[in-house]
């Protein structure tokens, strides 16, 4: 399944790339992309792991860019 999140306050392109790479490395994620210009994170993952992945993704975002807030889009 596919889920889209908004990354509010994202204004560093390199951090966007870092977030994308970290989320892609999570177990159960088939594909994750961060669109820097629209400030959106799209995660494609196995349905049953989605909730857990979203929670970890939020932590990753906090870790890489503490000022960015992950929101449901």
């Amino acid at each position, binding site marked *: 399944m596919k889920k889209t999140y908004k990354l509010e306050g994202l*204004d560093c*392109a*390199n951090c966007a790339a870092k977030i994308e790479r970290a989320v892609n490395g999570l177990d159960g994620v088939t594909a994750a992309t961060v*669109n*820097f*210009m*629209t400030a*959106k994170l*799209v995660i494609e993952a196995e349905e049953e792991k989605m909730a857990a992945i979203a929670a970890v993704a939020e932590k990753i975002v906090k870790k890489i860019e503490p000022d960015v807030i992950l929101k449901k889009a």
Partner: protein
Amino acid sequence: MKKRFWRILAGAAVFLAALLIHDRNNVWVQPIFFLISYLIIAGDVLIKAFRNILNGQIFDENFLMGIASLGAFCIRQYPEGVAVMLFYQVGELFQSYAVNKSRKSIADLMDIRPDYANVQRGAELVRMDPDEVKIGDLIVIKAGEKVPLDGTVQEGSSMIDTSALTGESLPREVEVGDDILSGCININGVLTVEVKKEFGESTVSKILDLVENASGKKSKSEQFITKFARYYTPIVVALAVMLAILPPLLIKGANFGSWIYRALSFLVVSCPCALVISIPLSFFGGIGGASRRGILVKGGNYLEALAQTEIVVFDKTGTLTKGIFNVQEIQPQGMAKEMLLELAAYAESYSNHPISSSLKRAYGKTIHNERITGVEEIPGQGVLATVDGKKIIAGNVKLMNEKQISYFSGELIGTVVHIAVDDRYAGYILIADEVKEDAAQAIQALKKNGIQKIIMLTGDSKNVGAKIAKELGIDEVYAELLPVDKVNKLEELFAKKSSKGKLAFVGDGINDAPVLARADIGIAMGGLGSDAAIEAADVVIMTDEPSKIATAIKISKKTLKIVYQNISMAISVKVIVLILSALGIATMWAAIFADVGVMILAVLNSFRALNMRNL
């Protein structure tokens, strides 16, 4: 952002004051001023760097800038220390301003989202969110309002502006019975429209969705640059450490301070931001600029591929030709042209075949059914009918042969309807698909833009294909292809391009989805209102103009030129500064300006991608 701006300005003022102070009696006054300005400017960066280290993020830019500036303080290069942070912050501010501006300009560009719909409820009009309107509801669109949902006009007529969807500035007329698409603007009349699609399925939602998600599919250059950035920073930092430690240990009499100074310059240029930011900014601009011209590109990767197109394959019908069959020639024998057309139209009037509708359209008058007595349709051949008591035979060569009527047997290109009246040959009517007005110009423009081969595929007969190809200047034609053959043919054509070159296929998006998918770039024409085309293609030309394909290629080339300029400028300036710093030729000031200056130049350059009007 405003607060940050004022804080930096205040810090800069203190910094300026510090530079001007000369107190010979007290050597500590000036450094203290520098320290104050430093803390004002750099406070948040240092806090962030510290917090990120606790989070396990070591090599982030805050940390690097923090070390570079603190290091400068340690070796008593106070002005440099403050300047590193000052210009870093100015760069960051500029960057975030530029990103916001670009996000906003695209949002304005795509400002086609309707805010409300006037829904008819009995005698009243209720203003509703377009999302809540249901299929079958009647909505009223007043002059100046946006069409909120796709539907059919039930009442009224008006001129509508479709430019937001098509890039076409000429308004279009709509009347009762016409389909109308969301995202257009009603110019003068009042229209009552029956809603045919929910908001989420309406044209405006589809287009917005597409453009917004387009930059998610990343181009090769963007992938390259993020990968580059990933290794660039650690390598430069490692070099900086070696530069600080090794020479003083290995070279006799080397001065520790001067090598540390050089190492700190390295840290200043170790941020990859300039590179990383300008690439998505350029592609975003290019995709936005294209959509303003009525060309939807579904991803940065496709925008990039368009510039490398070597072969363009057209499916004839609906791309180069209108896909509407029209009477091209009337050649009577022993009667007036009008008479022959009238008889043919009457004879064929009961048929649903596209040929008969083109005859009726050419005739243009109402058909009086009482004049027709007895009709017999012979599938694959034609019609036998009695009109005004006369026995009419209208059909192809097979029918004429069967009825033993001698007919004109010269070469004719297109579909021919032969007509006999009371068993005597009365002439023929030639029906053919019409070539689009800008088709020849489109082919010319493609050739001018470096397309090496232009190929046409068609299900039509060989002579029709050859004639159109010759007329338009197409290099190769493959005719009499069934839909399945087209995919196979495309496979063969892949062999004709170089390994780096791309093959684009242009179709009408109606029944060529497999071919569109197989091509490197699938381009669908006339996407406006055709969901299938929007779905299947990588690039959608909203209007019916094939000349827009060359425009798309030009936009792609311009965007890529900007991207390559940015990449080469940023990398080369950084490398030169690194070398000069290592040799002790460039000062830390040079490094600071190289870093921030390059970023600002790259961002300004990428803004050019937004302007695609004159291509």
